[in-house]
């Protein structure tokens, strides 16, 4: 079985700061991490490989420095890493990104064997769109299974997969046909630590580096800014509300009563609502 996992190197958004005066993003010194959701996809792929045999290829699109993320997943024991990097990809929105990734996955299929499963994380923590998985699936004509909390079974002979898909209303148990695209939910498994041997091998391993042309991308008009139908017109910090919070001033060390008075003064109807909600007491 051949499994392809798409990962993304993202800025650690918890570390991003906005310049207090200019309202611009301070990018300097912001560390990069593997998109946390993608790690669940990597682990799920490794588990399936360990059970059913085969290979796991990890693909990322990004700047040359994204190789760091690939070396890290190599140390977990993935079999192959492909870095898709080209300045033509700069400024890609999700539609342009899925064109590049889908074309690269096709090329991976031709070069290393057609994938049975393509994994992604639920979404990335920088874009947060959850659109790249569905986009890749559509472009490669794969069935798509998103928000997957569990893979119940994979039958490599019958080419069948059974998964649990989480929605707001409950859990769907779905059976589909390989090849499929699976977008994994968070918290579904625990990522393994690689062995020392794997870490040493990862440091020495070759990372396959492809330009757009290497990956078989023919139409540069579909890449980067040119290939992106969405246009970011402006980026801004939300304007400050003219009215700041009214502070409760009281001599009381623990001004709970004063706070409740203020709440009910501003929202008189709340007192009855709360009494009804709290009627168990």
């Amino acid at each position, binding site marked *: 079985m051949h499994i392809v996992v798409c990962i993304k190197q993202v*800025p650690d*958004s*918890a570390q*991003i*700061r*906005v310049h207090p005066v200019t*309202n611009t993003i301070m990018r300097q010194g912001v560390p990069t991490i593997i998109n946390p959701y993608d790690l669940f996809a990597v682990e799920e792929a490794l588990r399936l490989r360990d059970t059913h045999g085969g290979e796991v290829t990890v693909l990322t699109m990004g700047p*040359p420095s994204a190789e760091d993320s690939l070396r890290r997943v190599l140390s977990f024991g993935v079999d192959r890493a492909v870095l898709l990097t080209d*300045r*033509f990809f700069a400024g890609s929105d*999700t*539609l342009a990104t899925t064109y590049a990734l889908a074309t690269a996955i096709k090329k991976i299929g031709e070069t290393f064997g057609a994938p049975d499963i393509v994994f992604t994380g639920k979404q990335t923590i*920088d874009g*947060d*769109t*959850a*659109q790249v*998985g*569905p*986009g890749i699936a*559509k472009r490669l004509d794969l*069935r*798509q299974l*998103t*928000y997957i909390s569990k893979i119940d079974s994979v039958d490599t002979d019958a080419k069948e997969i059974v998964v649990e898909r989480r*929605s*707001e*209303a409950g859990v*769907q*148990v*779905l059976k*589909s046909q390989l090849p499929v695209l699976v977008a994994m939910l*968070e918290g579904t498994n625990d990522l393994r630590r690689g062995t020392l041997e794997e870490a040493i091998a990862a440091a020495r391993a070759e990372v396959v580096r492809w330009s757009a042309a*290497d990956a078989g991308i023919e139409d540069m008009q579909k890449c980067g*800014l040119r290939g*992106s*139908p969405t*246009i*970011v*017109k402006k*980026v*801004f*910090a*939300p304007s*400050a509300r003219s009215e*700041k*919070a*009214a*502070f409760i001033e009281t001599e009381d060390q623990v001004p*709970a009563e004063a*706070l*409740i008075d*203020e*709440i009910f003064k*501003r*929202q008189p109807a709340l007192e009855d609502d709360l009494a009804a*909600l*709290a*009627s168990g*007491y």
Partner: protein
Amino acid sequence: MADAPKTPPAKPQAGGRAASKKELPDHFKPYKHVWVFVEQERGQVHPVSWELLGEGRKLADKLDVDLAAVVLGPEGAETQHVVAEAFNYGADLAYLVADPLLRDYRNEPYTKAMTDLVNTYQPEILLLGATTLGRDLAGSVATTLKTGLTADSTELDVDDDKSLAATRPTFGGSLLCTIYTLNYRPQMATVRPRVMPMPERVERPVGKVITHPLGLVEGDIVTKVLDFLPARDSATSNLAYADVVVAGGMGLGSPENFQLVKQLATTLGAEYGCSRPLVQKGWVPSDRQIGQTGKTIRPKLYIAAGISGAIQHRVEVEGSDLIVAINTDKNAPIFDFAHVGLVADAIKLLPALTEAFRRRLSPHNRDKLAS
């Protein structure tokens, strides 16, 4: 990028995407009207659909076009009821694909139904809820139609030249950006539940319903639904629609102190939530997270204890009627958007507040005060 490109370098583009505005291609010029996808699972409409009809109404009025509801579902009374409700929430007309194959959500038939409708009836704007269903469907539909899709918008507007301006958090929620899809149609966006207010429901007769065939048989659909297990603990998903929410942040200092938030919430019959760091530290499960990667809330009362109030938190709680912030740091950004502020240690205040609320709200005291 530092590596040498193997293809000739492109000419530098001035101004990025903002500079690429062109005339809308002729084949997109007939695209008209605002559509809202009305999402249902087993006859239950997700309330975000009505919120979107309320917002769609405003956009349609600005553009002077019709607002249409798109209803996909099985044949029968349940689906007819959804269509009727769409008119009560302001739709001018409805597009309906009713087929037994649409009973459960599956990407394949839903994508086909939606893309067929768009290609046939040509809307200029298509809005969907940013739910698991809406995001799964929107991504496939936008890629099939090769158009732009703005995820998780927090604000929608129509600008002077009638383009859809969709605003959403960016850079991990620290800034907002406004996104356009100028040269492609439809202009698509998803919107998170509770970002838009619920419109008033007004009984109206059912208007024009345009039915469209699905054009699939079960054998065409590869993915099968083997089982459906309804969510057992519905309380976990009530956060977005709760009337009162109490939430805690890093100011609480320890996972044990988060119990103080839960106790106040229980006393108030409220839902509890938390800011992102508490989920990342594993103190609180992720379905309780409020903020950009968590839930959007619009309660009547929101009490934020020990939460500093980064922008990604702000945009997801701003719809609350009354925001009460408790923080030891009087310069915390949460005081920039809270209505009532209290510079205090939440660890000390929360137990006192719980006790004081319990006294005030107990039936015995209330009867005494009333008499």
